[in-house]
């Protein structure tokens, strides 16, 4: 399948996609890098000058930075924990035969298709609202004091909202992997005298390893950049209690118009993402082969 003619055609047909992506990646990234060494505020145009690492110093020594970093990690870790554990549980449940399985499956995956701004607002207002929210009503009907979710535990509330949206994703992928498990293998194990628990530990779980690593990888990519949910629920507050790196940079750039510091933050975010990516790719390297 490879003659000079087809090879030349292949190169020509691949180049638009490759060149566009290269530009898309390289140009803005180079600009971010360049801005990060400038004193550059949109409110003071024409005042740009080289400042060395001052922007990085500002960004990294900003008391908000360690909080945002911790929040980012908590957000990613918390959502991963809920979705992976819950996803395995739900997938196994949905894999059992029961009446209305197809409908339940549709119900369970639905949250993934809800746009982030909608899910954030629905949870914020109609469920978590301290006065009129459904949770408040439930708490009151049990005689308990309603919780003001988004002010008293903002990060946890956001984790719940995001996890709700991503749980179906994990479930769907794990379920697909589960259904591709050859039933011969399970039957062979049963013949060999394995009980349901050992079958799960020694057959099912290893079979799911690939799917689980994929879930972790992809969720991590998206969760590092959670933005809309924070914007419409807490705006990062109270204080910086629910600000993550992405939101912090957004406030620097588009609320304070400090292009220099925001760019330095962008570079930091890219470096962080790369560290996570390298770590993840190494972890799942052998799993993604073939």
């Amino acid at each position, binding site marked *: *399948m*490879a*003659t*000079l*003619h087809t090879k030349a055609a292949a190169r020509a047909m691949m180049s638009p996609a490759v060149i566009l992506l290269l530009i898309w990646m390289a140009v803005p990234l180079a600009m971010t890098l360049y801005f990060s060494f400038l004193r550059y505020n949109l409110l003071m145009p024409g005042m740009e000058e080289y400042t060395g690492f001052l922007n990085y110093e500002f960004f990294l020594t900003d008391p908000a930075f360690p909080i945002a970093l911790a929040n980012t990690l908590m957000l990613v870790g918390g959502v991963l924990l809920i979705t992976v554990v819950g996803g395995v549980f739900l997938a196994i449940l949905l894999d059992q035969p029961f009446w209305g399985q197809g409908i339940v499956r549709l119900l369970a995956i639905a949250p993934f298709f809800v746009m982030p701004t909608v899910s954030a607002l629905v949870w914020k207002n109609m469920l978590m609202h301290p006065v009129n929210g459904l949770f408040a009503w439930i708490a009151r009907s049990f005689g308990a004091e309603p919780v003001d979710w988004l002010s008293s535990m903002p990060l946890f509330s956001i984790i719940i909202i995001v996890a709700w949206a991503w749980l179906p994703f994990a479930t769907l992928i794990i379920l697909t992997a589960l259904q591709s498990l050859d039933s011969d293998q399970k039957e062979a194990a049963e013949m060999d005298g394995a009980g349901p628990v050992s079958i799960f530990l020694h057959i099912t779980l290893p079979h799911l390893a690939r799917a689980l690593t994929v879930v972790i990888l992809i969720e991590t990519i998206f969760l590092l950049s959670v933005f809309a949910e924070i914007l419409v629920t807490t705006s990062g507050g109270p204080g910086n209690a629910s600000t993550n790196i992405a939101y912090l940079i957004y406030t620097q750039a588009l609320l304070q118009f400090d292009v220099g510091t925001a760019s330095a933050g962008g570079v930091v975010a890219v470096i962080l993402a790369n560290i996570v990516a390298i770590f993840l790719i190494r972890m799942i390297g052998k799993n993604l082969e073939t």
Partner: protein
Amino acid sequence: MGAITLENVVKRFGEAQVIHGVDLEIKDGEFVVFVGPSGCGKSTLLRLIAGLEDVSDGRIVIDGQDATDLPPARRRLAMVFQSYALYPHMSVARNIGFPLKMAGMDKAAIEAKVQGAAKILNLTDYLDRKPGQLSGGQRQRVAIGRAIVREPSAFLFDEPLSNLDAALRVNMRLEISELHQSLATTMIYVTHDQVEAMTMADKIVVLQGGKIEQVGSPLELYRNPRNKFVAGFIGSPAMNMVEGAEAAKAGATTIGVRPEHFVMSHESGQWRGKVGVAEHLGSDTFLHVEVEGVGPVTARATGEFEARHGDTVFLTPEEGRVYRFGPDGLAL
């Protein structure tokens, strides 16, 4: 017309060289079979002729015209793939007519040609079906139909029967042979099955490691194998190869005796051995014998020959049917 000449054809994939300077002359109307173990380069050679791969060095001449750099479509060759490579979204009729449509032929002419091909191949009742609704043998015929409507100067077959079950394979083998008789067009046929090679070929090309080991008619190869490899590859069950003292007696490094070239006896003979497994096929009996001082030997006896595990039998290689090979593996 379908004379094809390969001149010092070389193919490299990056560093790896898979075809090492092949020279071959194929005459118009010949049925040529490329045979060899998997990885010997036989399919690559076919794809080079088809133009699906570039030749790294050397020339391919088709009907006197240098075709080395021609794209596949302009070589006037038709190919039947191992997987049949039918277009799954097109009906049988459209599959067969596709090359004619590509050639810009008008609808009525295509229709007539497709009908003609379908008649030859017993596909008339299936023309409206999709390939997915056909059996393996029917799909095979559609693939052949798609090849014959083009009236190519040569047909290329890449292991066309390997996806069929045993009984069907024998049938299709016959059908392809008959097709060759009636069309009298050059056919190049790749297979790893020496039975297909022996039964169908005018000329067999035995390949190994990207080199031609021997070219000749089936019986030439059977009678006069040039080396140990060809001797072992042609003939079924394979020739027994014996080294050591018995070979030295014949003045060779290795001697070869085909299973069918033993005189079998319960009483006396040159070699004495114990039967390991006896396979009674009715027409023949194949004995796997552990011969003293020689080693394991496969021998064919008549169908009626009585032998069971543990029996002692005597084997005598037929006079003049013992092949002698030197230290380099070449026949002496």
